[in-house]
């Protein structure tokens, strides 16, 4: 078994103990990318010279000598981000030292490749990119999730043990759910955002995509710049919100997530109670409106008009549509944000975490990214923000953990949300869940990586 098949922390441990040569590990990662990437298109750029230079200069930090990937949303000193797009819609991106780059560099990690993403970060599926779609390692005809499509596919295909993504309306959690990974959306502001193109964001965070919670704790801690301490989630109070978040989902998804919640309750000797929050009916549209209008300041009609046919038809259309969003809707969305934040704060006095499925249905086909849920047949991009957008709208942390597979063998993810600053509790809970199901889902590898 290659060390690349082991979790990120075990790779780091082997290198630190002198049991593995980091140069050989880097070469093995590059070879594996060459071997497996054609099937999944997760990595859009490698740069062996820069990777070897990072290793040569790497400090003996917690990720010393460990290869990782980074989403095409972050500038590197030798490469500007392209956002999975053929042309920028805002100011031209510049190469430089982004926060995630510095965090990785300063802890000894080696960036082995840049990972694919949904064009402009504007989709939950990953089926559109200037580099071609990333593919789901569990079924390469299906979407890996987006917008952090490449990070998800790269980790699931065991090309790297961890990858850095970004989450503005669920963009770490969707690929985690679709690809059978653990993905952490930090509390807003806890993880580094330096160098991100949406400098005034109030919704986007950097975060880790890894196989399990312990690896997210390690890589997340690097991005936070602090150790994310382990705790004991005994007596966990789990809140379930009635209605569409649970009921308007694929029945296999609902069943797996309900079983997982029960397993988590048992494992923590906790309790499950039904709770609700105000403003729920407006969360989907509000999270989209707030998230998508933060970038509008960088747009002009001339910039939108200049986009050629190498930019997707969908993006050209949506960018025009965004220019027409009514100001009253944006203002109301910001009011909803306040309503939901106040209601969540009150609710979290009675429960420790909220739980519901990360996505309403498993990964849809790349050539038809739509999903079937009890209320109808919809684009996945339409239904997914209903499940994930609230964490970005309000700033609270959230995690997606794998909890099963459908009869077609596609991963299912359970999402947990916690109060502001309780990111560690989410990791503790996810680890308790892993223990409750014998690590069955976090240790499973897709056929192409088996």
């Amino acid at each position, binding site marked *: 078994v290659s060390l690349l098949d082991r979790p990120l922390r075990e790779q780091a441990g082997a290198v630190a103990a002198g049991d593995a040569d980091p140069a050989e590990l880097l070469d093995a990662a590059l070879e594996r990318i060459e071997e497996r990437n054609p099937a999944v298109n997760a990595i859009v750029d490698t740069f062996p010279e820069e990777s070897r230079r990072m290793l040569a200069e790497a400090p003996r930090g917690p990720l010393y000598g460990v290869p990782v990937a980074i989403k095409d949303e972050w500038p590197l000193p030798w490469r500007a981000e392209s956002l999975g797009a053929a042309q920028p819609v805002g100011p031209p991106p510049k190469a430089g030292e982004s926060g995630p780059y510095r965090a990785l560099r300063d802890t000894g990690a080696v960036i082995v490749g840049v990972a694919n993403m949904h064009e402009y970060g504007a989709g939950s599926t990953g089926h559109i990119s200037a580099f071609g779609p990333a593919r789901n390692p569990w079924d390469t005809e299906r979407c890996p999730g987006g917008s952090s499509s490449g990070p998800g596919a790269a980790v699931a295909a065991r090309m790297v043990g961890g990858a850095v993504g970004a989450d503005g309306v669920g963009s770490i959690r969707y690929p985690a759910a679709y690809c059978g990974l653990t993905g952490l959306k930090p*509390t*807003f*502001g*806890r993880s580094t955002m330096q160098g991100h193109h949406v400098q005034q964001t*109030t*919704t986007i965070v950097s975060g880790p995509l890894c196989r399990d919670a312990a690896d997210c704790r390690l890589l997340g801690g690097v991005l936070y710049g602090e150790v994310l301490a382990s705790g004991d989630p005994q007596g966990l109070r789990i809140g379930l919100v009635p*209605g*569409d*978040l649970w009921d*308007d989902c694929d029945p296999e998804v609902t069943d797996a997530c309900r079983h997982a919640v029960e397993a988590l309750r048992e494992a923590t000797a906790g309790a499950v109670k039904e709770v609700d929050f105000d403003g*729920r*009916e*407006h*969360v*989907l*549209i*509000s999270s*989209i*409106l707030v998230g998508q209008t933060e970038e509008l300041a960088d747009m002009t*009609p001339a910039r*939108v*008009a200049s986009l050629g046919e190498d930019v997707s*038809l*969908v993006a*050209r*259309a*949506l960018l*025009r*549509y965004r*220019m*027409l969003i*009514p100001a*009253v*809707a944006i203002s*109301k*969305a910001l*009011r*909803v*944000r*306040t*309503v939901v*934040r*106040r209601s*969540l*704060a009150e609710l*979290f006095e009675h429960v420790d975490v909220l739980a519901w499925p990360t996505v309403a249905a498993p990964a849809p086909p790349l050539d038809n990214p739509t999903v079937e*849920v009890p*209320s*109808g047949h*919809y*684009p996945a991009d*339409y*239904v997914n923000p*209903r499940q994930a957008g609230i964490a970005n709208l*309000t*700033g609270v942390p959230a995690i997606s953990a794998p909890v099963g597979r459908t009869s077609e063998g596609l991963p299912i993810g359970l999402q947990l949300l916690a*109060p*502001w*600053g309780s990111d560690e509790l989410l990791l503790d809970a996810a680890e308790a869940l892993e223990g409750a199901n014998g690590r069955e889902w976090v240790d499973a590898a897709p056929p192409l990586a088996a």
Partner: protein
Amino acid sequence: MTAGEPAQEPAEDGQPSATQRSVRAGLELLELEVDEPELAVIEVVDSLYRPLTEALIVAELDGVEPEPGADMSDGPRAVEER
């Protein structure tokens, strides 16, 4: 918070729909051209999101305690705490 029923507003007799007319007019004011395939995409997206947007616009959200200088990294605070 249902996924919602797409608004049905098909063009009749080859005439542009209300969405097409309003989008064209809005973009014209911005001196931004839009072609037919782009309009078709916008119409689909609008049919999904317009009902939600309209529901939001008409929502009465009076009486909500404001959150001046809201900090998304933390929970909300009362106005007098700011």
